């Protein structure tokens, strides 16, 4: 049995002549927070709906918990979904909406479960308020509560922080991290990269229906961190000079010739001067600084669009 609890192979979805997803491959392991990044219309919601069993693929395969999925398979039950807007009856209260879902699950002791969830998402004081009178953020939090009602193994959240104020964003972030600590696998889509970077452990960049890149958090941070890349003929000789002469302790030796320096107080010309004075041959020295957003725009080739 593999670690992947969700595996998608060559998944394609067409709507009439338009291809919303094209040959998507990805694996999501148990316990991950999988961040799906993409612009509006990139295909994020379509991919999540396919994984959640709301839509059927035009071609390709979805494996959940090591089982190939076909229509109405019971493994879809183990997914909690909050896709696009929360599916709520506006004329009923938060409690009543949760109660309807709990009844459909055949849940015993509904009242206790519902009150616990309302407390978890911070809506216990608004449980009798009609959803019609809820703010966007409250609706999103109630949507998360609904998605959690069946105690799912996987929680799918599509743009969960849309419309939330900073406090609401922080609360949802904390909730996601807490749920993940309890062992829940979470798939979360967003176009707010900075926010996604605070929770996700793995990322996929989706662009025009295709997966452009899948990276772990460490890989992505490496690509986006601020550092000075020093290429010398002998890294072993250069390190003592960095430590003793420049007092740089925050660095990483990548190989025999490459050193990454993370000390933001030092300038590249200072390092270059000292190394050359000590007889070290410096092949190149470059400052690497790229925000998540810049990186995403580079990968999707959308920089021009934003500058427009």
């Amino acid at each position, binding site marked *: 049995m593999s670690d992947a609890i969700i595996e998608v192979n060559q998944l394609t979805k067409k709507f009439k002549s338009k291809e919303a997803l094209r040959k998507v491959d990805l694996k999501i392991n148990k316990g991950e927070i999988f961040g799906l990044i993409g612009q509006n219309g990139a295909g994020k919601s379509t991919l999540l709906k396919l994984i959640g069993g709301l839509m059927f693929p035009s071609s390709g395969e979805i494996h959940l918990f090591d089982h190939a999925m076909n229509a*109405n398979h019971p493994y879809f039950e183990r997914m909690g979904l909050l896709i696009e807007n929360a599916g709520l009856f506006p004329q009923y209260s938060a409690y009543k909406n949760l109660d309807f879902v709990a009844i459909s699950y055949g849940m015993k002791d509904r009242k206790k479960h519902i009150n616990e969830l309302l407390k978890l998402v911070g809506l216990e004081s608004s449980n009798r308020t009609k959803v019609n009178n809820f703010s966007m953020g409250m609706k999103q939090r109630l949507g998360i509560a609904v998605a959690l009602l069946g105690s799912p193994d996987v929680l799918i959240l599509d743009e969960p922080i849309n419309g939330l104020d900073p406090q609401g964003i922080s609360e949802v972030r904390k909730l996601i991290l807490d749920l993940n600590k309890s062992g829940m696998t979470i798939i979360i889509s967003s176009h707010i990269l900075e926010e996604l970077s605070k929770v996700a452990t793995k990322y996929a960049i989706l662009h025009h229906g295709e997966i452009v890149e899948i990276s772990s958090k460490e890989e992505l941070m490496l690509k986006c961190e601020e550092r000075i890349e020093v290429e010398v003929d002998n890294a072993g000789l250069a390190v003592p000079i960095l430590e003793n002469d420049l007092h740089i302790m925050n660095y990483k030796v990548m190989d025999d010739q490459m050193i990454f320096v993370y000390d933001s107080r030092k300038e590249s010309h200072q390092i270059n001067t000292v190394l050359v004075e000590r007889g070290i041959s410096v092949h190149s020295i470059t400052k690497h600084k790229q925000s998540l957003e810049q990186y995403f725009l580079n990968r999707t080739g959308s920089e021009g669009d934003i500058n427009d």
Partner: protein
Amino acid sequence: MINLFKMDLHRFLTNKMMYILLMIYSAFQIFGIFMGKKYEQPVEGETLMSAMNESQFIQTILSQTPSWVMMYITVFSVYFYMSEYNSGFYKNYISMNNARIHSVLSKILTLGLFTLFMLIVMIISDLIGRAIFFHNTTIGDLGFFVKLIIGQFLLHWAFSIVILCLTMMIKSMIASIVIGIVLVLNVFGMVAGALESLIGNSNFSSYLLVNTIIRIKDFNDMNETIHVASVAIIFMVLFSLLAIRYKLKEDLR
């Protein structure tokens, strides 16, 4: 299946729209009887409205197009399905095993319940109206009356399933209600009847659902009773299967 039906039933019984529709219908039904009393005119060979028993009265009311009972059933069927569809509430349970099939069956049962409520309200309103304005609450032959109510219940339930199926496919509240009204006006029945009269011997239009609902029937005649039951069951089964098949293949956006 039972759980989804329980959920729909819970929503059905806590739905103000259902009670409002039934109350409005009841008020208009009683008002209709008052108007019937005020403008009652004897027609040669026909029983006066005030002299009719409940069975005759129901047959007369239901034979007048557009049938208000069907109109209310149309509005409720479209509303009940579309309110869930538009809110996206189905996303909360549709990933459960066989939920697509069960949700359609559950809606069908709920609409059956609403149809039953409509007929009960119709009978009660008729009795109240007839007692007040005609001083006549006779029911007539009880066996005939029971067969009439069961027959009309099945036919109207079948009609609600047709509307549900069309609404699922059309996915628009207004368009579904407009099509429902066209059906209630029996446009298709009239066109089919006209074509039949041109062609000759065909009797196809008598098997159309709305035509069967509005035709005055003799439930003492076994053939007539079998005809009514067959039309109702065929439409119920056909459109239930169509609705389930559609739901099983539907991409829920």
